[in-house]
């Protein structure tokens, strides 16, 4: 038998199988992975409405067109946008500090300007969820 001959392995059905498998997988491939950011508007109503507990510190993130304003009851922290985008590093840093201060809290109110883009809102929302502040109440006013 000459060296390199493939008498023992018949490649034709192998190639057939691969071709069919590739066609099937190409047709059924999902190219865009779509996922979701969930919000419970009941949570929003209770945070914004009159159900707020007495003595509970009101934490809010306000996304304006030129800055992010974080409020902790009376205290106000302003972070101007960088390159017309919200300063997510400063936001994450502040949220980390809130986490150390309020380890049992996960709720925060998120207010936005009406002119803000949907993409910016999602960016900030994503940062809130990623920093373990998952109970986000979005204001619809």
């Amino acid at each position, binding site marked *: 038998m000459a060296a390199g001959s493939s008498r023992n392995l018949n*490649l034709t059905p192998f190639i057939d199988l*691969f071709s069919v498998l*590739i066609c099937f997988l190409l047709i059924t491939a999902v190219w865009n992975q779509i996922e979701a950011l*969930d919000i419970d508007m009941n949570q929003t109503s209770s945070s914004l409405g009159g159900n707020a507990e007495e003595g509970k510190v009101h934490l809010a993130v306000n996304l304006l067109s030129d800055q992010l304003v974080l409020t902790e009851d009376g205290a106000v922290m302003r972070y101007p946008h960088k390159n017309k985008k919200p300063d997510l590093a400063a936001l994450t840093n502040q949220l980390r500090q809130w986490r150390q201060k309020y380890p049992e809290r996960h709720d925060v109110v998120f207010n936005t300007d009406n002119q803000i*883009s*949907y*993409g910016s809102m*999602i960016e900030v929302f994503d940062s809130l969820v990623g920093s373990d502040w998952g109970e986000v109440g979005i204001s619809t006013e």
Partner: protein
Amino acid sequence: MGEVKGTHKRSLEVPGYRIKPKWDLPGLRRRQSHKGKNSEAGLSLTPMIDIFSILVIFLLMNFSTTGEIFFINKNIKLPPAKNTNPLESRPLLSIVGNNVVFEMENKVGLPTRIEESLDQLHQLKLSLEQLKNRHQKLHPNQSFKGDINIQADESANFGNVKKVLRVLTEKGWTAISFATRK
């Protein structure tokens, strides 16, 4: 007797067994080289099988058993997000420009589509109420969760999204999922 080649004066030799001729004639050389060559144009299967294997492995890794839950509107580019949950199959509300497109199933289970301007959301309110009533009739012992998916372009004005959120909250649809791309 020495070896003599070519057209030189040569002595007579007894022809015997030869693997290759001693005379280096160009025509003979050509014939000999063609004899050794395989004249069939062979297809090299090794790289082809390599490519096929890599393609199959890549596509298998990419395979999703859930498939597409809904089709993204061609005018919408979803915003990216990292801390997300898997999307579930629910009624879909799309905000395209200044219009709202609501896709749901009608009474007989066929997909229906409603499109109207953001300034007047009457049809949307009606559809949301109908869907909610239908759910409550079909599942009287279950509380209505009001699950709905929203998709909008990343450059869309959030004020428009707020209008829709107000209507949804008013009609009891409170478990909202914003569609994003990973």
